[in-house]
């Protein structure tokens, strides 16, 4: 080999190797950006899902598989039934809102934030170990195959309801009346009367004006690309969080959704209505008598 060619070779190889090494180091930062059109399509899809849940009107059936259309009906039934059986209330209305923001792995601003801001939710080790940092946890998109992806998204469902039982017939009030009839102690009787008044005052607004409860639901959806657009084919969700078990739980088995209805009968309200007036009254009588 001609000796003069070696330096030329090195001049070409060294920068090339340096460039390759740089590419390897920078690879996490050079990943292709998220598809903006896909994000817009998902936005439209979730907005329609939200609308279908709130109104019960599925105006774009192509957005949902047959089983998903059944799930939307089931979800509306669930909220009405949960309020009715679990909370002795009548559903008035519900609203839904989806929150999602695409995951940004290895975003440069997040990385800089972590390095400079000690209050950041990430840590320096995340950066040094090459893991993603400061990632919004409420949304992720994962490609499952050419025509399928999964979507991790959070939904807030607000349920508006009115309590079905007038304050005078609230079990605790009936129980207090039962106790009142069985005490000769004027101080205990006074306490029980005050208890009845305060309990009725607490319950009355829920009966007359209504109240709202909020479900924060964590979804994992399977979305398919079809010739005419996106279609949700599965939606697994729960409001189970790090502290409390879920109330609104839907899993999927072999393409069919499985709804957990056991939660209807585990509410404090349900249990209260399945106690006898005598049992409640005896407990109140014991509490106030022993107190004196």
């Amino acid at each position, binding site marked *: 080999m001609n000796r003069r060619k070696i330096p030329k070779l090195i001049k070409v190889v060294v920068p090339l190797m340096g460039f390759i090494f740089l590419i390897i180091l920078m690879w996490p930062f050079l990943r292709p950006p998220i598809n903006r059109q896909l994000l817009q399509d998902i936005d439209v899809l979730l907005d329609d899902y939200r609308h279908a849940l709130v109104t019960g009107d599925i105006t774009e059936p192509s957005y949902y598989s047959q089983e998903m259309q059944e799930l939307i009906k089931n979800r509306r039934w669930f909220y009405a039934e949960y309020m009715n059986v679990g909370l002795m209330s009548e559903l008035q209305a519900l609203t839904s809102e989806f929150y999602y923001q695409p995951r940004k792995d290895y975003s440069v601003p997040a990385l800089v934030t972590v390095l400079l801001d000690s209050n950041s939710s990430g840590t320096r080790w995340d950066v040094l170990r090459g893991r993603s940092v400061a990632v919004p946890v409420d949304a992720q998109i994962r490609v499952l195959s050419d025509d399928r992806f999964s979507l991790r998204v959070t939904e807030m469902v607000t349920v508006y309801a009115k309590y079905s039982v007038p304050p005078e017939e609230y079990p605790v009030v009936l129980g207090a009346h039962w106790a009142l009839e069985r005490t000769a102690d004027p101080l205990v009787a006074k306490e029980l009367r005050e208890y009845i008044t305060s309990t009725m005052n607490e319950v009355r607004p829920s009966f007359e004006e209504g109240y709202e409860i909020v479900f924060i639901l964590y979804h994992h959806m399977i979305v398919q690309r079809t010739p005419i657009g996106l279609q949700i084919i599965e939606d697994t969700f*729960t409001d189970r969080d790090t502290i409390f078990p*879920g109330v609104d739980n839907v899993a999927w088995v072999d393409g069919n959704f499985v709804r957990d209805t056991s939660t209807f009968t585990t509410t404090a309200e349900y249990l209260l209505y399945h106690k006898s007036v005598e049992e409640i009254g005896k407990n109140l009588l014991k509490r106030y008598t022993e107190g004196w």
Partner: protein
Amino acid sequence: MGKVLKLAAMLLVLTAIFVVVSKQSPDVFRDEYPVMLINHSRIFDQDTSVLEFACLNQPVCPAPLEIASIWDSTPNKPGVDQAGKIYLPFYNRSEVLYLDTTRTSTTCVSVDAGLENFFPISVLQVEGKTLLADLDTLLIVRDDASHKVIELTAVAEPTLMGIGGLVRGTENSVHAFDSSPHTVEGERVALVFTIDLVSENVTPVLLPIFNAEEKERRRVQIVGVSADLSKVYYMFSIQTSEQDESQMRLVMFDTQTKRELHVYRDHCLPRQGYRQYGNYLFISSGSQGPLLLRLDDLSPVVNFTTLPTEFQVLTLAPLGRFFLAGTASEVLVLSGEGDILETYRVPPEFFGKKYIFVEYWDE
């Protein structure tokens, strides 16, 4: 010319190192430990509870177990030992249930020390003994169903404020540490009780921690000690601005050199639930979810929020050389480096429930 060659050689070496490091073969999980979940539910009108088991990597699983519901019958850090015996401590009693699943039908043995007002927070299974500790009492339940109660308040001065946790020590010993620091002769110290598992004798030890003059540190709390007592792990909050904003710090302190070697900082660091296993400090679950740090340098093993799971990771438990991480729909087997080695589906009947893992301790 020589410089260029050196540069080229250096780049080559660096590239080779990078490729080798990134191509390291991952650890492998071969079902050597049972992956088991328990769901606890109360039967309200009968005042009993039912424990349902789900076995994700073995065909045989214990049948549902009905237990008397005294107040709360949720098992507290249940586990399975090397002999296949499942132990079930509870949060509100001095009773441990042992399920022997190795026979053709599951047998259940109850060992109850009959202690009143015993609310064990800390649990440790070591050398066939189950150790339970509440704030001031240690209960050792032996594998022959006998037991011993040790009142740690009677053992030493300074007075124990409250047991913060149990840690496996060296040579058949266990450490119980006071979560509150003490000041002895002007020096800040950590109070640790070392329990010899053979003689079951207790020896109090005082370990130095940071200088008592550092008054800006608030709510100092001991969260762990190393097996050889050469390190103490503690946390505290410090004021970071005049607006009284505070930040949490978790520190590793060397008791020999009397220096703080490593600091883990996070603005939402939990104050409760720290446990130790092997070379790890971890929180099974909490309002912020689980946490898994290396004891060597307090570096996080994994950022749970970035794992490719269907739902957020809710709970964590030791499984031999590995860890189990649970979401609403999946159970992951993680390597000691935080890599996902295996994924199991949570049974539909456990979905959305607050299931707990059956731990496997093999340090």
